[in-house]
C-alpha cells in the first residue's frame, strides 16, 4: 500500500461519511462532489485517464450540478434537512450495510493476489482502446445500458406530462382574459 492509496482511501471514506451525515443538504452534496473528485484521482493513478476525465465531467460536473440545482430549488436558502423523519430506518440501514460488507468480503476472499497494475492497465486508458472494447467485445452490454437509459428518460418525460395537452397560451393573453372576465363581473 502506497502513501497515495492511504490518502485516497481516507479521503474517500471521510467524504462519503460527510455526504451522509452532514445536516445541510448542499454541504452533503458538496462532500459528494469531493468524493467524486478523489475517485477521479484514483482512476488517474490507475492510468485510466479517459475514465477519470469522464468521471469529473459527467458526475462531478453535470450530474451533481443538476442535483444541487434541485436541492436549491426545493428547499429554502438554508437547505437544512432538520429532524430525521425515518429514524427507524437507521438500524435497518446498518444491518443492510453489514450484509453488503460480508458479501463483498466473501466475493473477494476467493480472489488471489491482485494483479499488478502494469498488467491491468489499458494503453494508458485512452479512448481508442477503450472504445474498441466497448463497441466490440461488450457491444451488447453497452446497447442494453443504452436502452435502459433511454427508457428511463422517456418514462421520466411521460410521468411529468400533464393529463391533457392544451395549446400553449401566452401568459400575456391569459392575463388579459382574466382581466376581461373580472371587468365583465
Amino acid at each position, binding site marked *: 500500500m502506497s502513501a497515495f492509496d492511504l490518502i485516497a482511501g481516507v479521503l474517500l471514506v471521510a467524504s462519503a461519511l460527510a455526504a451522509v451525515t452532514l445536516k445541510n443538504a*448542499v454541504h452533503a452534496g458538496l462532500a459528494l462532489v469531493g468524493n467524486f473528485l478523489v475517485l477521479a484521482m484514483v482512476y488517474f493513478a490507475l492510468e485510466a485517464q479517459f475514465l477519470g476525465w469522464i468521471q469529473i465531467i459527467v458526475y462531478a460536473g453535470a450530474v451533481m450540478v443538476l442535483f*444541487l*440545482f434541485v436541492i436549491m430549488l426545493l428547499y429554502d*436558502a*438554508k*437547505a437544512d434537512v432538520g429532524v430525521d423523519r425515518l429514524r427507524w430506518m437507521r438500524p435497518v440501514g446498518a444491518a443492510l450495510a453489514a450484509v453488503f460488507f460480508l458479501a463483498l468480503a466473501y466475493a473477494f476472499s476467493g480472489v488471489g493476489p491482485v494483479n499488478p497494475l502494469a498488467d491491468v492497465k489499458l494503453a494508458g486508458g485512452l*479512448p481508442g482502446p477503450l472504445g474498441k472494447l466497448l463497441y466490440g467485445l461488450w457491444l451488447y452490454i453497452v446497447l442494453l445500458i443504452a436502452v435502459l437509459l433511454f427508457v428511463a428518460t422517456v418514462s421520466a418525460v411521460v410521468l411529468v406530462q400533464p393529463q391533457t395537452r392544451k395549446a400553449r397560451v401566452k401568459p400575456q393573453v391569459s392575463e388579459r382574459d382574466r382581466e376581461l372576465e373580472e371587468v365583465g363581473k
Partner: protein
Amino acid sequence: MTYLITALKGLVLILMLLFAFAYLTWAMRRVLARFQIRLGPNRVGPLGLLQPIADAVKAIFKEDISVSKADKFVYWLAPVISFTFALAAFAVIPLGPEGSLFGLDPWVADLNLGVLYIFAVAELAVYGIFLSGWASGSKYSLLGGLRSAAGLVGYELALGIALLGPVLLVGSLSLRDIVEWQGEHGWLILWQFPAFVVYLIAALAEMGRTPFDFVEAEQELVGGFSTEYNSMKFVAFYMAELLHWITAAALIPTLFLGGWHAPFGLPDIPILWLFIKWAVFVFLVMWIWASWFRTRYDVMIRFAWGVLFPVALAWFLATAYWVASKGGAV
C-alpha cells in the same frame, strides 16, 4: 527538473493571465466607451493606462463585508473555486510548435485528452457561480445562481457535441494534434463551419457575455450571483469572468482557426499569430457586447435545447457518417 520547469511555466502563465486581465479591464472600458461616443477612463496615467492599478489598490483597501445570512464556509469557498478553475483552463493551449519558446515547449501541460480537460475545468468552474448564489442567502443571488446552472448545462452540451465533429475528423483529443492537423490539412473552420458557429455561440453563453449575460442581468437581478460580494471576493469573481473570456478567445482559434499557424501562407511566428487571432476574438466579444441586446432567459434556454443542440447533433452525425464511409480519420 521537468516538474520544476513545468511549475515555472505555470507561474509565468498565471502572471501573464493576470496581466492580461488587468489590461483587459482597461481596454474593455476604453473600447466600449468609443462605441458609445464617450471617453472612458483617461485620467490615471497616460491614456488612463494606470487605471487597473488604481482599481486594484481600491479593491484591496475596501472593507471586506460578509452577509449575516450567508453560509460562511461556502460563501468563502465559491470565489476561490471560480478563480482557480478559470486560471487552470489555459494550461493546455499550445502557443507554438515544440521547442519554440527559447528551447522550451510553449505550453504548460500536453495532455492526451486536452479537450476533456478543458470541459472538466469549465464544468467545475460553474460551481463557483452556482454556490455563491446559494451561499449569499439572498433571493437575487439564488436566482442568478440557478439561472447559471440551468443555462450552462444546456450550453455545455451544445459546446461538447459541436466539438465532436472536429475531434472525429482529426482522430485525437489532444489540442496539439488538432493544431498540427490544421497545419497540414487546412483550418477546421473550412471543414467544420456549422460546428464553429455552434461553438462560438455556446462559448459566448459559457463566458456569460452579451447576448447571454443572463447570470448577472443587472436590471432584473441587481448583480446576480455576485450581489452580496464586495472587495477582493468580488474581484475574484470578476477576474474569473474575464479569464473565461480570455481563455475562450484563445481556444476558439486553437480549435478552428489553425492555432499558432499563420494565415494565407505567411511565415509562421509562434505566439504572435495566436496573439493576433486572440485579440480579434476579444474584440469581437466587445463588439457584440456594445451593439446587441440581452436575450430573455426562457428564449435563451429554448434556443440552447431547441436549436443549438439539434444542429450540433445533426452535424456530428453527418461528420461521423462521412468519416466512417472514408474508413477513419483524415
